[in-house]
């Protein structure tokens, strides 16, 4: 069947010669069969193509193939930002010439016969490449050309539209009726009709259906095809398997894994791991079938009662050298650095230019113009990028060089009242007295002739030493600490215990107790913001009208009235459950059961929380309301006596 009135093309001639009957000016009006097709019914088209005439002809068949003519594949053109023209002769969209580094040639440009294609291609390439190639100038191609054209988007049929199905999208089974319904419902934009009917949303992405859908919309709405526009031609052009996209990133290669030099020891000692960024960090070390809770309680108690050891190698480390290193630190941290003497360490808080806490860590002055900065594990790469940004773009006059040394050093952090005895066993020559080696200082020393840096800094509130050593010795150093600490029951602890211990001391974790909306003042850390410094990153934002609001969310401690009740992190906090809608005051950011205080403790951000100490609040949960009291953020050892125990 061919809906054209005639064709003189070679293929039509050949079909006739072979005795194949072609029903010109005919269309299929119905199909028959159960489960599979066995016959079709066809009728002749009226002159204007709006209706069928004459008698029904029935033909037996095994299958029915259909063809909708050619549609230029304009995907590449539009995906690189090109627009389309509508070519009325052929009823197709073709690329609109654009001033871009691309040309469309051949069928994708709407040229369907070989002679035109060769002609135009040579011409276009000559212009595009600014050459003058005449090799194909007089190429004569003998090929049959289809001159007769006829286009009908929705074939006429005597059966009412509801009684028969004119499929438009063969994958999503959307029909002409659906499209007409969409128009009746008031959808006009092609993008809306697409989503209402799902036409063109199957895996072929409308390659079979979109032109028909557009044609039917245009006919029904009485507008011109070219004015309707098209939906977006999105990549990929053909469906891809997921394998093509992800490659070998499956199974153990799904995500990149970073390991510390001590990783194998943690595995051998049954550590459960937590993902921190790309790092695998020991989470806790269960013994004899302990639950996580049991293990963390044991580890936390051991660290405060005797000694604990943590693999702190994942912290970001940036080597800072240059004559302006001190000035640079003054500009990036909120506190002052010029007076830090060589051999000393200082905690620093880094803000974004908007005044919100961005990162924190301890920085050590190694020499007059040489510092070692530590960053949070997750923030390491971003902090280095941000600091380089300021050096290269805002402060190119500063003589400062940054080099990442995160992987170069491995760090074993030994804490607890017996830590000094353990360090003394490992480094017998090192004078550990408070006079020689006070809190927040470091010593360069040697272990078996290998350079070590021992820093007396603490994230747990306990007396604590961090030993930095080149990573190839990291595991050996760790094992040395473990054996030296054996008589003191040195207990390896993971990130969960670390989080619990620091929460007892009210130390924040950037990214857990902060979320990019907390200023130092919100964290009750005004003490770390220098009043004297003229400028540092984020300073000006600390007294914007919004950041000085009294009713900002502020970090507070929470104690549950029932000391055994552990709050859920993320739980909402309210003061009154009777007035609806309930006013949300904030949420819990950190929550643990402290074995050292034998009660539940939590940190939370609460609106105007600073002035609410002692106030009763409510944490509404699914089955009950939990009563809590706002407290100080420091739960243990407010006087910092343990640091010098």
């Amino acid at each position: 069947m061919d809906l054209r009135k005639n064709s003189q093309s070679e293929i039509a001639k050949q079909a006739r010669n072979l005795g194949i009957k072609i029903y010109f000016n005919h269309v299929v009006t119905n199909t028959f069969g159960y489960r599979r097709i066995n016959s079709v019914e066809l009728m002749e088209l009226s002159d204007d193509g709006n209706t069928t005439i004459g008698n029904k002809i029935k033909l037996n068949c095994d299958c029915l193939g259909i063809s909708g003519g050619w549609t230029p594949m304009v995907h590449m053109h539009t995906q690189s930002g090109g627009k389309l023209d509508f070519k009325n002769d052929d009823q197709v969209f073709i690329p609109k010439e654009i001033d871009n580094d691309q040309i469309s040639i051949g069928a994708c440009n709407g040229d369907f016969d070989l002679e035109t294609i060769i002609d135009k291609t040579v011409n276009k390439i000559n212009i595009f490449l600014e050459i003058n190639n005449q090799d194909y100038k007089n190429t004569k191609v003998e090929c049959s050309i289809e001159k007769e054209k006829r286009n009908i988007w929705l074939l006429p049929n005597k059966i009412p539209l509801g009684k028969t199905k004119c499929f438009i999208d063969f994958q999503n089974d959307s029909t002409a009726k659906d499209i007409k319904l969409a128009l009746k419902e008031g959808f006009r934009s092609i993008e809306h009709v697409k989503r209402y009917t799902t036409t063109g949303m199957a895996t072929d992405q409308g390659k079979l259906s979109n032109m028909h859908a557009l044609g039917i919309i245009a006919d029904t709405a009485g507008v011109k095809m070219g004015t309707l526009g098209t939906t977006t031609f999105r990549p990929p052009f053909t469906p891809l398997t997921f394998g093509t996209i992800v490659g070998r990133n499956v199974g153990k290669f799904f995500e990149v894994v970073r390991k510390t030099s001590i990783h194998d020891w943690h595995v051998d000692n049954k550590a459960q791991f937590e993902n921190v960024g790309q790092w695998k960090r020991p989470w806790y070390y269960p013994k004899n079938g302990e639950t996580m809770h049991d293990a963390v309680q044991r580890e936390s108690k051991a660290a405060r009662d005797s000694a604990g050891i943590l693999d702190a190698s994942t912290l970001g480390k940036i080597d800072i050298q240059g004559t302006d290193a001190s000035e640079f630190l003054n500009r990036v941290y909120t506190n002052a650095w010029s007076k830090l003497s060589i051999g000393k360490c200082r905690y620093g808080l880094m803000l974004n230019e908007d005044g919100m806490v961005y990162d924190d860590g301890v920085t050590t002055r190694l020499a007059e113009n040489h510092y070692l900065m530590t960053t949070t594990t997750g923030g390491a790469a971003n902090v280095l990028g941000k600091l380089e940004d300021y050096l290269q773009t805002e402060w190119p006059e500063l003589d400062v060089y940054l080099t990442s040394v995160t992987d170069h050093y491995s760090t074993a952090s030994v804490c607890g009242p017996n830590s000094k005895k353990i360090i003394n066993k490992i480094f017998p020559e090192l004078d550990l007295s408070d006079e020689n080696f006070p809190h927040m200082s470091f010593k360069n020393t040697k272990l078996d002739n290998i350079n070590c840096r021992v820093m007396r800094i603490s994230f747990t509130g306990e007396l604590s030493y961090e030993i930095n050593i080149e990573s190839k010795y990291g595991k050996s150093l760790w094992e040395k600490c473990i054996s030296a600490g054996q008589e003191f029951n040195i207990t390896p602890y993971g990130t969960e215990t670390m989080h619990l211990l620091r929460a007892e001391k009210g130390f924040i974790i950037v990214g857990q107790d902060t979320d990019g909306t907390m200023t130092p003042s919100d964290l009750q850390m005004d003490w770390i913001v220098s009043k004297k410094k003229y400028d540092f990153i984020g300073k000006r934002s600390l007294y914007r009208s919004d950041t000085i609001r009294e009713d900002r969310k502020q970090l507070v401690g929470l104690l549950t009235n029932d000391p055994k009740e552990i709050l859920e992190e993320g739980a909402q906090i309210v003061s009154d459950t009777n007035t609806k809608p309930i006013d949300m005051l904030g949420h819990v950011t950190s929550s643990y059961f402290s074995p050292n205080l034998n009660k539940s403790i939590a940190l939370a951000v609460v609106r105007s929380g600073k002035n609410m100490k002692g106030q009763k609040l409510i944490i509404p949960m699914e089955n009950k309301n939990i009563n809590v009291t706002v407290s100080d953020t420091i739960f243990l050892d407010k006087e910092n006596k343990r640091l010098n125990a």
Partner: protein
Amino acid sequence: MLNTHYPQITDNKLNDVEISLQEPISKINLRGKSKEFFAKVGKVLSLILPNEANTSSFSENFNAIWLSPDEWMVYFKNDDEKVIFNKLYSEISKVNYGSVTDISDQWICINLKGSKIYDILSAGCSFNFDQFLKTDGLSTQTIVNHIDVILHNKNTYNINLFVRRSFSEHLCLWLNDSAKFI
């Protein structure tokens, strides 16, 4: 005694790709801009730092890779006593001519040899190796399987790949896995 532990990278030969760990190798990061900086480096290492992007230079004992207009990585066979590092540090960093940082354990050096090494790398890397593989001594920093690397073309189909220590085992597992499909 303290023992050394290197990442578990077993030497492997598969489909004409040889992967082998090259440690211990000392590595030093050098940064600077001043005339004095270049002069001191030249004096201590008998080497002129390359100033052309993506290239390297070498002297009898040292290789220097261009990392950026003011940054280089020098690598050489092991310097346990840190003699070279200490010398550079005191002649450059201490007197404020630039920065000198020991990064021996920051990066792990892995040697790749064989006619298919660029096929494996290209399975996880967008870098165009056309020029790189033709010219001895070229270097580049790029990403292989989402991991930052420094590549140094020693000679034909023989390159040193530097990867941060923490990523090295994962990258080598991936390289070995990819080699199976070449």
